[in-house]
């Protein structure tokens, strides 16, 4: 018998008043794959991410982590299980420095007894230096090591996106949810990002779930894709299968007259 998928979504529905944002969506993400989520605007992609990361409570259905339902899901508990995410509309800690943004991501590994922390014992200082070193490594990975002392708010858009990625990686996730990481990038930057995501997956032995509108990029990057339209999953499979699915073509191009 094979191992249960890292993440499984079973019959998930999200209703906001009269709007059914997700309708009975099921899918499973296997360990180590890059799993894409595409669909027209308003298809429910971000809602699905929000439901997985416990920012939205689903109306029905459940999310399974390694085959087990997550009881009392809360964003911080999911982070400790190994889930990290970035946000479509960037949520950095703007008043903190670039380095501190990543250090907040290392929160889980920074615990020290309060008294020792206040007194700044040798052990605490050594641990602090290790964490700062780790933060710099992560910043170097996304090419931001030179701006570590800048305020996060002062970074240009593309660098803010990369900082958010470094912060997510700091939590040492098993599964990384990327919500439109290439938004606002030009084709060259999108290619770089593609390489970066692959490199990160290989280096950290990650599973990646990604939302992106740029379909050709997704076809190249992803191992498998799910297509949402009006809250329903209309297709699931390898890029080749999805590309030729008549329902997908209809969702993107309209039905042939």
């Amino acid at each position, binding site marked *: 018998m094979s191992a249960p998928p890292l993440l499984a979504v079973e019959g998930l529905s999200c209703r906001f008043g009269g709007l059914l944002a997700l309708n009975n969506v099921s899918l499973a993400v296997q360990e180590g794959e890059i799993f894409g989520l595409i669909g027209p605007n308003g298809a429910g992609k971000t809602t699905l991410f929000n439901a997985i990361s416990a920012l939205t409570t689903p109306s029905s259905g459940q999310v399974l982590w390694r085959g087990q339902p997550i009881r009392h899901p809360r964003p911080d508990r999911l982070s400790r299980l190994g889930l990290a995410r970035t946000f479509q509309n960037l949520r950095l800690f703007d008043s903190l420095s670039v380095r501190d943004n990543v250090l*907040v991501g290392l929160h889980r590994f920074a615990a020290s007894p309060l008294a020792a922390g206040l007194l700044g014992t040798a052990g605490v200082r050594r641990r602090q230096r290790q964490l700062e070193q780790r933060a710099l490594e992560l910043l170097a990975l996304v090419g931001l090591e030179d701006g570590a002392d800048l305020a996060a708010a002062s970074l240009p858009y593309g660098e803010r996106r990369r900082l958010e990625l470094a912060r997510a990686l700091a939590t040492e996730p098993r599964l990384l949810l990327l919500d439109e990481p290439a938004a606002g990038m030009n084709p060259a930057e999108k290619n770089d990002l593609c390489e970066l995501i692959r490199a990160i997956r290989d280096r950290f032995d990650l599973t990646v779930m990604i939302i992106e509108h740029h379909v050709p990029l997704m076809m190249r990057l992803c191992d498998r894709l799910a297509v949402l339209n009006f809250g329903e999953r209309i297709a699931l499979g390898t890029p080749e299968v999805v590309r030729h699915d008549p329902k997908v073509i209809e969702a993107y191009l309209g039905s042939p007259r």
Partner: protein
Amino acid sequence: MDAGLLVQMLIGALLGLSVYLPLYCGQLSLATPGFFAIGGTVAALLSTRVPAFAGTGATSPLPALLLEMALAGLLAGLLALAIGGTVLRLRGIYLAIATIALVEILRVFNLNLPFTGGALGIFGIPQPFDSTTGYAGFSLALLAVVCWLCARLEQLRLGRAMAAIRDDELAAASVGIDTARVKLTAFVLSALLAGLTGALAAHFLNSWNAKLGSFDASITTLAFVVFGGSRTWLGPVIGGLALTALPELLRPVGDLRLIVFGLVILLGPVLFPQGLITPQLLQRLGHGCSVVGQGFSGAGRRLRGRLSGVRRP
């Protein structure tokens, strides 16, 4: 400046820090005067009713004061722990309103409980120090310790988590911070500080009544932080010191003083929206100091060079 005003200013700074702690993680709590009142009442009751704390006649031993402060802080902290979980579910202005309600409830209790002396309060609280200078020294030491702890806190994991919650609570939760717990910790620390400050204030004022923990005090203590700045511990300290001293220093202008005081409180946030003291300001000052320092050490090097040149044959 007389020592009495200095003690009041130092107590103001301590209360400013008590408002600052929850505000540092974005929680607008106005409960500080409530916990301050609990601390004052605990100290007043213990030192006038319990012989072990009362000492001989008008004086009380210093260890008794320390023990009262510890008990007052503990009681205030426990109350904060008990109600914090519920109250801190509220955000922004709603949390402010709930904490105002708490202050009012405590004030009404203080006014009507059979043993707190009604509107007149409790009189003749024994003095652990011979003079106000003693209070000034003790308060200054206490403020120094609390400032040091706050400065350390800002460098620690807890302080970073608090700042992260202030900037974006949702993002903080999604990187694994138990936001409810961090907010509760800040709230309890704030209550603890207000409680032990209250115990000190009760002895200093020699009497204690319900008026000392009122809605007015909520707004005044909030003004300390708004005026001084809420991004670093130095802000509320400066705000507390300055705004406590100002009405007294303005006495020469007579009845105008409250108008001038009001104008200062009004103009402060208009001219310095982030408060007087901001991390950027401190950074600039620190940079300035290091430039001056380098200048000095450069001059020193040149001087040493010349001296050694002189000694050379």
